[in-house]
């Protein structure tokens, strides 16, 4: 697992913990909304803001709507985001 993957997974785990969903297992295949991590719109906004803090950009603000954790990781892996801080 590379640094970007680790950071993204950690960010999501911390967010879920803050939202009282700490029992949810996060993997690259996890679906962000619906039956997956079940993030609501405000939690998605929080994730967007935290990712921007971490990486300097985030896929949601860039107009993308990633559906899985892997798609978030891919946004940074594809070089569209800034390097991890």
């Amino acid at each position, binding site marked *: 697992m590379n640094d970007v993957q680790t950071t993204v997974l950690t960010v999501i785990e911390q967010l879920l913990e*803050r939202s009282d969903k700490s029992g949810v297992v996060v993997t690259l295949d996890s679906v962000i909304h619906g039956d997956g991590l079940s993030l609501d719109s*405000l939690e998605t*906004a*929080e994730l*967007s*803001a*935290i990712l*921007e*803090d971490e990486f300097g950009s985030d896929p949601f603000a860039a107009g993308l709507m990633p559906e899985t954790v892997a798609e978030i990781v891919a946004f940074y892996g594809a070089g569209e985001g800034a390097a991890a801080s």
Partner: protein
Amino acid sequence: MSSSPRTIIVTGGSRGLGAGIVQSFLDSGDRVASCSRSTTPQVKEWESDPAYADRFLFIEADIADRDQSTAFVQAVVDKWGTIDVLVNNAGVARDGILALFSDEDSDTVIDLNLKATIHITKRVVRNMLSHGGGSIVNISSIVGLTGYRGLTVYSATKAALDGFTRSLARELGSRKITVNSVASGYLKTEMSHGLDDAQLNQIVRRTPAGRLGEPDDIARAIQFLVDERNNWLTGQVLVVDGGLTC
């Protein structure tokens, strides 16, 4: 004095009411960042005062320009990390009856009072969501509640801000972020919206408190709203006008 310094943003803090708000938060020991389109003697005084060393940041920026607004917020985050309080004070008034009002003046008032406020609030809310709390105060006006002949566009923006306050409070309440408006009455500042002496004297006669407001009257209300102990108070419009509209 606060127990630990908070980071406060006051837009339009170089003069008038905004300067009074900046001074209030400097007096309460907080870190204060402000912006306006130009530096004033008051700003230079704060910048050179050793009592405010490392506690005052001023950047010349026109927040109606989204790039400048974003850069201003980023500069505050780069310097102090988190933003605890946002006071949306920057505003402009243009008077004149609507039938003769220029489109340019309408755009100027709406762009700054409303669109710029929405944009900077969005940028700051993202920081507050990330670190888990904060307080926002929108400086509104009693003319947004009562109306005032010759201030149609200005009063429309202030009424809109009050609606923005209520909806944003509902959005962010669960994240320990409070959002309130202060509907200011008429103050002894240059922002008395082009009212002449006769109009101001009439306002004083009709005001139960018998005087125009001072910036500190408004600043004290803001300090109350952003006090952490008052975090059950959100989504409200607090009228501070010497009783004029009661």
